[in-house]
């Protein structure tokens, strides 16, 4: 009998598992993939090591979410981190600007372009880094567009500040929640870009090793196919080829639709909750191109820095183009060289299409993306490519079961920012969810925070509900 079974070894599940094991609980994590990490995995092709999804995490400043979690787990010294400066560069036909590690430099650069907005730029950045709790709560119904309107008059400046959110959050300012946008800025843009040496798999492996060292059991390549509920209480899971495993608490780090619609029976569900769940919209997915480069390749930009190329400066147009135009016309893309310059990555957000569509079109899309970056970003790139492959929304779905290969869980609109019941459904006792399908915490630091916070809650709850167990 386990104290807790966690479904999914994404960062949220791993952090939750480590924190529970550290509190003395007996924990099992079940992961369908052959390696831990969820989107934070890496894969090898000959001499090339590629990050499958994200390449860095944020919120590692003193007191940042990610730093607090890693410190609590005794892991803040376990990873060698590199932070490129700048982390991100935005390139548009009208302006190019960067997010530097030192915010003052970013503000100064923008101030030069927009001399009349200097005071407002400082106030906006101050808000993002030091917002009081109440001020943040007051944003809950606003869009990011409305937040920008409170600070700035210049349309071009507002567009430029919204563009990175289209790229990393998948929504234009008119649709993105101000809370979500502010979080992306605070935790991901202004304090982002921490790249673990050895790739993102190293972060996941470090957490998995810590989990095992704390006595946790990690079962890979096994799928949970059912969460058992008796008398409105989650009592265990059914694992393929293993059978029923009882547990006092069940934590799902999986996709929310998968958890509620596939792992639970309709009889266990609250009909009103089910209806609202079915109506929720996932975020966009990604097309990711992985290129292995020869020794003659020298990136024309700083390795590690992400360069976002936009064909136009209007973020609403960029978003609309993602939704409606063929991906080959690529109105924007993000390009980055690995820190050792051996790998080159191109990412484009896209809508979901089925596996068959990608099978038919993948090669052609790769050709057109390579031609595009050759013309716009890396002259002569095609001569240096020794390996190429791509992940599509169907690939992302296959490896992680994220609905439609969604990159960020639910679309971060004000309506979907907080949905009570997604972290802890009121109609099933002892069932919790962690990960990017639960609430507004964004990015890797956000899911680490949720996993950590949920584990602390469970450790407290266990003492109350099951006092006979000693730590």
């Amino acid at each position: 009998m386990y104290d807790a079974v966690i479904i999914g070894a994404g960062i949220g599940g791993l952090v939750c598992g480590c924190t529970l094991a550290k509190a003395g609980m007996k924990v099992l994590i079940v992961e369908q993939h052959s390696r831990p990490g969820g989107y934070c995995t890496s894969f090898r092709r000959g001499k090339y090591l590629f990050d499958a999804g994200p390449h860095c995490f944020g919120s590692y400043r003193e007191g940042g979410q990610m730093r607090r979690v890693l410190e609590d787990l005794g892991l803040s010294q376990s990873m060698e981190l590199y932070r490129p400066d700048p982390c991100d560069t935005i390139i548009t036909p009208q302006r190019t600007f960067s997010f530097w590690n030192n915010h003052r430099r970013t503000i100064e650069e923008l101030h030069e372009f927009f001399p009349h907005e200097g005071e407002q730029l400082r106030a906006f950045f101050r808000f993002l880094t030091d917002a009081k709790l109440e001020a943040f709560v007051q944003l809950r119904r606003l869009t990011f567009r409305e937040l920008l309107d409170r600070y700035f008059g210049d349309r071009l400046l507002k567009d430029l500040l919204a563009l990175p959110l289209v790229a990393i959050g998948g929504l234009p300012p008119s649709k993105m929640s101000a809370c979500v946008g502010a979080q992306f800025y605070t935790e991901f843009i202004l304090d982002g870009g921490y790249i673990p040496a050895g790739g993102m798999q190293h972060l996941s492996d470090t957490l998995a090793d810590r989990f095992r060292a704390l006595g946790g059991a990690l079962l890979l390549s096994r799928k949970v196919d059912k969460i058992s509920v008796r008398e409105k209480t989650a009592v265990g899971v059914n694992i393929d080829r293993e059978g029923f495993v009882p547990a006092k608490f069940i934590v799902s780090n999986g996709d929310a639709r998968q958890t509620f619609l596939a792992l639970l029976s309709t009889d266990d569900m609250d009909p009103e909750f089910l209806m609202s769940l079915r109506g929720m919209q996932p975020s966009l997915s990604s097309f990711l191109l992985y290129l292995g480069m020869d020794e003659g390749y020298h990136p024309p930009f700083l390795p590690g820095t992400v360069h976002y190329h936009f064909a136009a400066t209007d973020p609403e147009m960029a978003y609309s183009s993602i939704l409606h135009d063929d991906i080959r016309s690529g109105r924007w893309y993000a390009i980055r060289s690995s820190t050792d310059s051996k790998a080159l990555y191109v990412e484009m957000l896209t809508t979901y299409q089925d596996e068959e569509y990608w099978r038919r079109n993948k090669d052609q899309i790769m050709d057109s993306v390579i031609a595009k970056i050759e013309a716009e970003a890396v002259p002569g790139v095609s001569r240096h490519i020794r390996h190429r492959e791509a992940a599509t929304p169907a690939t992302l779905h296959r490896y992680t079961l994220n609905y439609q290969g969604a990159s960020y869980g639910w679309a971060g609109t004000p309506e979907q920012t907080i949905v009570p019941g997604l972290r802890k459904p009121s109609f099933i006792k002892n069932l919790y969810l962690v990960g990017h399908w639960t609430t507004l915490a964004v990015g890797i630091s956000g899911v680490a925070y949720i996993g950590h916070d949920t584990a602390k809650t469970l450790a407290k709850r266990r003492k109350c509900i099951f006092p006979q167990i000693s730590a």
Partner: protein
Amino acid sequence: MADSIEQGIKDIIADVAGVETEDIGPDTNLTKDLDIDSIKAIEITVAIEKKFKVSVRDEDVPKIMTLQQAVSLVRQLVAQKQAASA
């Protein structure tokens, strides 16, 4: 009605803060005693708004620092709503 508002808010705070309802007294401070951060503060506010079908005004947000404050604010909002629809 009064009791159900108090119990409902207590349940929400307990759920979000990860404590038992017995641990929450009328003057328990959400940030100081229960470690409520900005994400949890939004979770509590939105859950209260959805549960009691009210809308908390911006100027009232800083008033939700204790259970007692939250209860009196929600009572007031519910009463205003009932008066408006009467």
